[in-house]
């Protein structure tokens, strides 16, 4: 069952429990502990000012986050894969407009063996906004069978927009499979042209393609209502 909650500060998900949380209002700082074997999906639809979320994931537990960020503050995510065979997925969409400046930081620490992490961060930045993405993957000494992946994709929609990306992979163990990618670009010109030949004006075509770019994240949400909520809310702030 989907549970609606507000302003998490400390939350422990008991061992073995399965939970889907939709967080309506965010606190400045939230700590979540996912105990052994628990499976959590966590959706954050709204944001306030700065907020930091740290999650500790226990043995065999799974934690999956989707969060939408519009740059009214900074977003700091940190994940501690603390138990063996812990799994973490973090999907972030950021949409910055106006003269917002925002830091989106996401850090994953593989502190136990056989842990898997997947980070997908997609951003669209327009007007004079400035986004900084800092993504870390940290694999300490002597860890084994680690699989970490991080992807960051951003599009610039205006000449005055800026995106800075600073991925950081620090690996001190050899039994790892790690990949990361980061791309900063714009909408595909051929696609824009194609839409316009079909009579769609440029503004609509750009909106449509931006939508499609970000929807990759939302489309993986299984709960239909939540998926549609995200899509409805994923618009640039005035």
């Amino acid at each position, binding site marked *: 069952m989907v549970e609606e909650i507000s302003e998490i500060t400390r939350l422990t998900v008991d061992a073995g429990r399965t939970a889907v949380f939709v967080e309506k209002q965010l606190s400045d700082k939230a700590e979540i502990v996912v105990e052994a074997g628990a499976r959590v999906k966590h959706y954050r639809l709204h944001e306030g000012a700065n907020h930091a979320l740290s999650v500790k994931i226990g043995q065999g537990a799974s934690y999956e986050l989707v969060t939408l960020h519009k740059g009214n503050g900074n977003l700091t995510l940190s994940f501690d894969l603390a138990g063996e065979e812990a799994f973490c997925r973090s999907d972030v969409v950021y949409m910055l407009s106006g003269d917002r400046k925002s830091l989106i930081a996401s850090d994953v620490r593989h502190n136990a063996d056989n842990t898997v992490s997947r980070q997908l961060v997609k951003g669209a930045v327009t007007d004079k906004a400035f986004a900084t993405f800092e993504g870390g993957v940290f694999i300490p000494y002597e860890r084994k069978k680690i699989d970490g992946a991080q992807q960051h994709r*951003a599009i*610039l929609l205006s000449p005055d*927009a*800026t995106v800075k990306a600073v991925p950081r992979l620090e690996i001190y163990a050899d039994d790892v499979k790690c990949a990361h990618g*980061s791309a900063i670009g714009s909408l595909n010109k051929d696609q824009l042209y194609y839409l316009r030949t079909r009579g769609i004006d440029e503004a609509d075509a750009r909106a449509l393609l931006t939508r499609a770019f970000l929807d990759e994240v939302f489309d993986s949400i299984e709960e239909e209502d939540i998926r549609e909520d995200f899509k409805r809310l994923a618009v640039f702030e005035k």
Partner: protein
Amino acid sequence: MTQEKISAQDAVSDTYHYGFETQISAETAPKGLNEDIIRFISAKKKEPEWLLEFRLKAYRHWLTMKEPKWAKVSYPPIDYQDIYYYAAPTSATTPKSLDEVDPELLKTYDKLGVPLHEREVLAGVAVDAVFDSVSVATTFREKLARQGIIFCSISEAVQNHSDLVQKYLGSVVPYTDNFFACLNSAVFTDGTFVYIPKGVRCPMDLSTYFRINAKKSGQFERTMIIADDNSYVSYLEGCTAPQRDENQLHAAIVEIIVMNDAEVKYSTVQNWYPGDKDGKGGIYNFVTKRGLCKGVNAKLSWTQVETGSAVTWKYPSCVLMGDNSRGEFYSVAITNNYQQADTGTKMIHIGKNTSSTIVSKGISAGKSQNTYRGLVKMGKAADNARNFSQCDSLLIGNQCGAHTLPYMVGGNPSASIEHEATTSKISDEQLFYCRQRGLSAEEAVSLIVNGFCKDVMQKLPMEFAVEATRLVAVTLEGSVG
């Protein structure tokens, strides 16, 4: 006793801060650095006033700077007053013959197939005659001069082509750039100068392999390459056999200027002494290399194979100013034992339609730390600029580290930056497969690592590539059980 030591140190720091008058005798400046030493260097080299001023300005600025600490390397503090800045004396440790050279080093030469007479030069044996007979520079200089190509030491260039040197010195790497570049600007004693005139394609690969080594003046090298409109040159730096060198600090600068439609290829196979198996000794290689693609359609390509140095701090970069200019960086960095490498590149896109490619292959073994650090920046005017980076790391053994720290700034919506990176290890299955075909574990590792680096090795000039391949095997010796 302790009391005395402290006062001795105080005396040194007095010299440092207040420009203590130093009695300078004959050919060699004493250890340490102050304005008098710099005046001495400049006078010895009969330099024009402007260059002395340049050095002094750099020195004064250096006094205000701090050693950078951001790189992922650690080493004991360097005592800058304990270094000879001029005419590094042929110290008591210089071997008189090959009999006195570390047998481990000689074994390595054997494996690399270095000819006997070259071994003496490389090992630092004081035999000038040998050096003279193989000098690349002397042999070809006349031939090059006929085409108007200038290829000489930077000291000679200061004497004979002062206007060119003055125009470009510090134009790509200003003395304010960073701590080590600033130090170099104050005290550089030698290096190479290359000028390729308009429309000339340099008929051979230029190399300073022998000259630099024989003079043991590599500590504060300064290299300048200027490729005028529509010219081409391929420049080879370094040598392909391990060097014995008692110098601890190498702080070099390479400045390259590429004009309209010109192309410069700069290849390095670097294997300064990495220290022994326990991490003792070895070179600190703190180098600032940067090229300015000043003209339209200019192209600059860096290729480096880094197997040496105890600590490497090096980011050969391209400033892509001219429209349609192109920068490339192909790098292999291998670290073993206790080596530390923090290396990568910067691609600064300023002009329209500029493009850059980065291919970096890092291999860490033993207890080493290997970091790729790179900056790609798209300026506001860099319309339709393109960058692609591929950074792969390979780990051998579980005591080493591999780090990937790219930094990307996109500031133009029509520009694109793409960065891909992977980290993996040589799989047990790959090792078993190769060994089942009869290869030893070491041969298998060397084969797999060379395969991993192939995209970069292919960019090296042929004769360099062959030896670089062998170097990979030598560097990784003892990395598998």
